[in-house]
């Protein structure tokens, strides 16, 4: 089974044998994939309807609410902490960001870019809250309560003295184009960052 393209990029950023924590691990697909390369660790997931799939995949899954932070984990206890497409659904993303760089030597965070031109277009000319392939819900039923743009995200990283090691800004097909390269905040739909805390 092939991996979703953003998960494939994440996987490519993680070296063999690393110890990882996958926040919001869903059905354990990423961790299962990583295990083949000797990468071990835990998945955290609030919804235990996904647990049977995790267990079948041989993935250690812990039921946990990310809004509580990561108090069960010691400082710098994982090589990588991964948060994919979940940051915008967290009650206190700034707090979780602190927790991620506390627990992980490296962090990988992916989120939908609210600065994409389609969002801007819909809000400016349609006068409505944007709905797109990466943000398919209406304003009243969306789990995405803390959307941000690429600029917003990089600003909070700067203010928290979190260094950006690398980033991948792509369109909804997870391809990079001339647009995503030149004007990422306008043409990027999904952003992926590798970060760590400035030492």
């Amino acid at each position, binding site marked *: 089974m092939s991996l979703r393209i953003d998960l494939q990029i994440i996987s490519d950023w993680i070296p063999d044998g690393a*110890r990882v924590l996958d926040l919001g691990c869903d059905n354990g697909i990423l961790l299962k994939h990583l295990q083949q390369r000797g990468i071990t660790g*835990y998945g955290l997931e609030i919804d*235990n*309807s996904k*647990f*049977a799939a*995790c*267990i*079948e995949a*041989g993935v*250690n*899954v*812990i*039921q946990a609410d990310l809004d509580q932070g990561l108090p*069960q*984990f*010691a400082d710098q206890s994982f090589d990588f902490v991964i948060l994919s497409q979940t940051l915008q659904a967290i009650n206190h993303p700034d707090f979780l960001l602190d927790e991620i760089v506390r627990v992980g030597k490296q962090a990988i965070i992916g989120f939908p870019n609210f600065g994409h031109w389609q969002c801007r277009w819909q809000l400016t000319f349609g006068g409505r809250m944007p709905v797109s392939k990466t943000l398919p819900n209406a304003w009243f039923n969306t789990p995405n309560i803390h959307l941000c743009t690429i600029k917003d995200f990089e600003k909070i990283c700067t203010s928290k003295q979190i260094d950006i090691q690398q980033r991948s800004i792509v369109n909804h097909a997870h391809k990079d184009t001339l647009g995503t390269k030149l004007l990422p905040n306008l043409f990027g739909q999904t952003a992926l960052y590798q970060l760590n805390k400035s030492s």
Partner: protein
Amino acid sequence: MPETVPADSVGLVTPTLLHIDSPLLLDCGRTLPSYDLIYETYGELNQAASNAVLICHALSGDHHAAGYHSADDKKPGWWDSAIGPGKAIDTNKFFVVCLNNLGGCKGSTGPTSLNPETGKYYGPDFPIITVADWVRSQAVLADHLKVQQWAAVVGGSLGAMQSMQWAISLPERLRHVLIIAAASKLSAQNIAFNEVARTAIKSDPNFHEGYYAEHNTLPRQGLGLARMLGHITYLSDEAMGEKFGRKLRNGTINYGYDIEFQIESYLQYQSSSFVERFDANTYLLMTKALDYFDPAQAFNHDLAATLANIQARSLVISFTSDWRFSPARSQEIVNALLSTGKDVTYAEIEAHQGHDAFLMPIPRYMEIVQTYMQHVATECQS
């Protein structure tokens, strides 16, 4: 039992009595020179003896975990919902063992047994047994069954204390441990409930300092009261409300002190049936085993250090409405396992049944146990 044996039942089962003639040194300092263990098995041990699963029972449980003893039995064993062909703990794949613990009253040596040294019932003179003592005696049974390493040791509540203790005391003798509705030690509130139960038993005029057998009587009132209290705390407010609400037995209130509400009638029935099948001294002993359990005590109260030598992979499960062994208590165990990098899976099951939820066939709970055990079974074949 039903007229025909259901396809997913282990069917008719017969317990086996094992007499052990070698002494067992107990935590209390005393020694049992010889003792009996009664147990049941379901399924077949494979040639490599790699598919054995030990089920540890809780306070009022026994060796009869699944199936029926006779065609006249109204109810199957206490965890029949989880053990059987095709069930969560699949007897087509596993050799499942369940024994009555020492100090019990269902066939293993305990207060209702005759003391070979005096020819009288042990009664209150039976030594207090700890969870670690149980694990030692269970290891003797494992040796007898030629099981060098359990595929999994499984327990809920007091049974989970035993499965944890197995992983701590004999780490190389199990590959998986299932710790369900557990705590690494009782809270003051839990000990307090147990003390009320003990006081109820001990203050019954028929208790006779525990020598009621010699007086040909039983402390029915006290044991019944202890059971009523326990029963209330094993359920949740919501579960009781849903089952009984304020329903009246006869539809009207009578302005008197007789039983009027359905819940009163239920508790009275539960306690009166319990006192006929359970021994008061055993109840006292079981509550003490619960109170004393605190494996981290020997490790300077550091639970992570206590669990550091565990080799088994763990599945920890708690239930949202369980206020006797709350999810927070399970999370302590999980956090200790995480801090030393152990393989662990933890699920908090949405359930309104309180502590008793661990005995209920709640679909999400059973799905997780079944999937986990299938994974364990796959390892047994490879």
